[in-house]
């Protein structure tokens, strides 16, 4: 019975990956986050960017942005009205347990260098207490949900409200 569970645990996500054209080998390189969900989230950010671009927003997913330091950073999603200047950046941190403060710090130092008007961190399932305090201190907007896929519409709403509001 246990063996069947193990086979099912590996085979089902692997099948999904193969059907999506993603190497099943990736199953073994990112143990912290359920990979089908990472791929799902990434795919949805790309869709979100496409839709926003149709409305003339200049969205990118993923977005590579060169910071003040000259270092190139990658975000899951960003809106850049001018080349190299981010209005809003979005990143994801998906984990099987609470996301710790190191992930917030990792996001913050990228944000500090890129200096966008707004920074959004999508987290699943949620931030730990210290991480939440840190995010608040750094002025990071945090979106949390147990289901990673549900973070996409939440992020889309925040981005639309911010970009649509013409906030400076």
């Amino acid at each position: 019975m246990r063996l069947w569970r193990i086979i099912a645990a590996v085979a089902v996500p692997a099948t999904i990956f193969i059907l999506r054209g993603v190497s099943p080998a990736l199953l073994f390189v990112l143990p912290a986050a359920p990979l089908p969900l990472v791929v799902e989230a990434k795919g949805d950010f790309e869709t979100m960017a496409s839709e926003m671009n149709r409305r003339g927003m200049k969205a990118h997913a993923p977005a590579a942005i060169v910071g003040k330091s000259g270092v190139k950073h990658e975000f899951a999603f960003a809106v850049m009205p001018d080349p190299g200047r981010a209005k809003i950046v979005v990143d994801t941190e998906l984990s099987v347990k609470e996301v710790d403060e190191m992930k917030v710090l990792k996001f913050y130092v990228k944000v500090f260098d890129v200096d966008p008007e707004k920074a959004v961190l999508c987290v699943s399932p949620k931030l730990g207490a210290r991480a939440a305090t840190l995010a608040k201190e750094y002025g990071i907007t945090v979106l949390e949900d147990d289901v990673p896929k549900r973070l996409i519409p939440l992020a889309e709403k925040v981005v639309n409200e911010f970009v649509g509001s013409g906030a400076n």
Partner: protein
Amino acid sequence: MKEGKKKIFPVHYAPGKKLFHVVVTLSDAPGSYSSILDLVRTKVNLIGTSTYTRSDGTAVFSGFSEALSEDLTGEELEKLIMSSKAAIAARVYEGKDGLLVDTFHTGFVVGDEEYILMRRDGLVHVFERVSKMLGSGGDALLFEEGVAMGLRNAEMMTKTVGAERVRSQTGVLNRFLAAQGWGILEAKEGPGKGGFIVRVDDCFECSSGGSSRKGCNFMRGYLVGGAKATFGIDYDSKETKCVLKGGDACEFQLRPS
């Protein structure tokens, strides 16, 4: 004569050898140092020595040495040194089991500034960890810290030797970094007006590691900070060559922003 790394002796390990650290306060007068050397060389083989003057008109001789005879004691050596008129005070520290540590000095002073000594590999490992933990943000952080240190060090140098001398003798002052083991810097003008190309041979930042880092962001920041403090303008920078990427040296371009 080939340039090279200076050997200093905060510690020395020579299994099976009887080791002494000889420290002598002597009068800061011509011939004092040689008179001490003439005495000690009959009893010990000096491995590494240093001398420096102090503000009270005395000088200090410090030497790590190996005893020429197994019977030699630290007390005998002290007595011998104190027989010289040049010696004001002497202290001989004996090593144990072939291990000798400098227990007399408590740090380093260059000019009026205190310095610490650390292993290159140790510092590079810290950079490696920052980059590993914080990803590209860690690289940006290292750059920012480099800028901050470059600014501060250049300001210190300006205070010591004057702004004009710092601007006109950048090449000479770059050798100060080389003497400290940062790397051998050579700057030339270009590519645009007011810009610089700085080549760094033996750059400390990429002397080891490199599994997480993609370049020498601290050094790049240091050059930007130093140039800003020296010339009073902001610079954009990029590393065009790096040992971590297979280059024979590191090369940085700085252009006025």
